[in-house]
């Protein structure tokens, strides 16, 4: 049972344009959502997060939007840069227990010059 889903395995975008990565979740108990970025042969690195009490969080070129009613979140990268090429994982957790992360399967973003 995949509780966090990233239905697009890959995305190609031109440099300077917007990248939009999508994520859906099924567990209504999730109340905190994170995006991680992963380069080959490295561990995931934290990028940006959002609490369920917000619908938007912005950090520089990265913005995460949360639509609780649709159980959907998205990561916008504007403008996209070649160095953003990586695998992006959406993750979620609950504010109970030990806050273990539940990850999606990832979206590979390729930003071409």
């Amino acid at each position, binding site marked *: 049972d995949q509780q*966090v889903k*990233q239905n697009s395995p890959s995305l190609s975008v031109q440099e300077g344009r917007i990248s939009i990565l999508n994520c859906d979740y099924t567990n209504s108990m999730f109340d*905190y959502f*994170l995006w*991680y970025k992963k380069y080959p*042969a*490295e*561990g*995931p*690195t*934290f990028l940006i*997060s959002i609490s369920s009490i917000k619908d938007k969080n912005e950090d520089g070129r990265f913005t995460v939007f949360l639509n609780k009613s649709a159980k959907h979140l998205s990561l916008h990268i504007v403008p996209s840069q070649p160095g953003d090429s990586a695998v992006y*994982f959406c*993750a979620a*957790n609950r504010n109970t*227990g*030990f*806050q*273990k*992360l*539940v*990850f*999606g*399967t*990832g979206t590979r973003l390729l930003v071409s010059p």
Partner: protein
Amino acid sequence: GAGVSQSPRYKVAKRGQDVALRCDPISGHVSLFWYQQALGQGPEFLTYFQNEAQLDKSGLPSDRFFAERPEGSVSTLKIQRTQQEDSAVYLCASSPRVAQAREQYFGPGTRLTVT
């Protein structure tokens, strides 16, 4: 400062062998997680330590998997009698405080291949 380190980075084991994977978390981090990432999948939770206490091991796939963190710092994940389905990248993550375990710092992982 140093990040989370893991060793070995790559391990090839013959089916039936035992393996031990090491994680050195960021100094002073209270929370430590182990995840398993199969090819083409996202990381999946295995187990969680708060200091030396293993508080959640619900993700360990079988009793062949065992983890410890005896002094509340370095952790070892041991897999006995490895099987081909154990082939994956094993990721360790740490977090400075229990209340902020949400934002976890990951190591580079150990890629285990069972032949």
